[in-house]
């Protein structure tokens, strides 16, 4: 807390007013899912089961939004053709 604010400056009640999409949960991740598009059969199970809404369908293929992916590995485990593999985060 940089400075204390009075009640007049604070938002009314406990109303959450910012969207959580501003909060990137991608840095929770230890392993990152990588999609092999040549194996993908586009069954969309990863999109359905992703708890973080980090799997995106762009109309042609699956994209993983690494801003939000927490690296749980559900998509890789549930993929029926094993097109998603969990790989270590690249280190700079």
């Amino acid at each position, binding site marked *: 807390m940089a400075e204390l604010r009075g009640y007049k400056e604070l938002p009314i009640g406990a109303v959450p*007013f910012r969207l*959580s999409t*501003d909060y990137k949960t991608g840095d929770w991740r230890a392993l990152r899912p990588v999609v092999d598009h040549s194996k993908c059969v586009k069954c*969309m199970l990863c*999109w359905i089961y992703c708890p973080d*809404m980090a799997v*995106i369908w*762009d109309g042609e293929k699956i994209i993983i939004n690494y801003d939000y992916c*927490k690296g749980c590995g559900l998509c890789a*485990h549930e993929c029926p053709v094993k097109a998603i593999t969990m790989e270590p985060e690249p280190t700079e």
Partner: protein
Amino acid sequence: MPKQTLPQVPIKKGEPAYKLWIFEPGWKGELPLILNPRQLAEQKRPALLPGHRLCAGCAAPIIVKLASFAFRGPTIVVNATGCLEVATTIFPYTSWAVPWIHNAFENAASTGSGVEAAIKALKKTGRLPYEHVDVVIFGGDGGTFDIGFQALSGAAERGHDFLYILYDNEAYMNTGIQRSGGTPPFAWTTTSPVGKVIPGKQQAKKPIADIMVAHRIPYVATATPAHWLDLMKKVRKGIEVDGPAFIHALSPCDRGWRHGTELAIEIARRAVDTCYFPLWEWTPETGYMLTDRSLAIARNPSLKQPIEKFVEVQGRFKHLLKPENRELLKKFQEYVDLVWEDLLKRAANAPK
């Protein structure tokens, strides 16, 4: 107030990946229930936005997301205190793309009743610019089995038109894995620890869905996120019926059940395969009806797996696999079989 932004993820065809559910006043009709996954991905957007701080691999957001695909139009979500509430609305952030209200731990159903009564009053005086506004309540097992039970029972008795979705992670996971009425027998929790004398929880799991059936409300069902089509259909049925509806959804919790983060769906699937958590729905007209995988198991009992399949992947049941505890595992199997046989006797569509 900071500007609200939704991330612009490149989507070549169709709509952006995340959007707020905004219905213009005067919006009419019903959102379609899409069961084809590709069409679903193209046309539907979940009511829960990313950036929520539930644990990696939690099944609760999957249940919320799948339920939101079955919403039929403007919806107000009421939340009981629990993991879902504290992790999705950490001040000043909210993960909800739909109107959302939280009141207190014990009164999610009462808050929902109030919201529903307000909708009814606004409709009567012509101040509601929508045909229908649905109320969906999400409660955890603590807020449903134990703390919120009398509010839920009262709301069901008064007959308010809402859908209560219980995501059951079988303990108070939010506060640190304390036992609840939903914890199964022999499960380890921090308040039912496993030791030399006591092997985990001593009591059985409260049959909450059967208790709701006893209220004679129009619709009761059980569901898991692994059987996602089944869950979506049940949510839509629960929203469409006139009166209270209740869905008991199993929600594997990797922190509390002590399993890998990638196993939530697998465990939910095994819970149904071992008949630990049978899938069924109940209406006053049809009685108990088995659905999805449980119906397949009833027709072909050789598909039924032993309870070890469910127990072996979870750390909270680790002690049951020790050779000296074989008796307990047998007892657990007997308990599961008893519940399953009892359901088979009652189910109208089970082969006799």
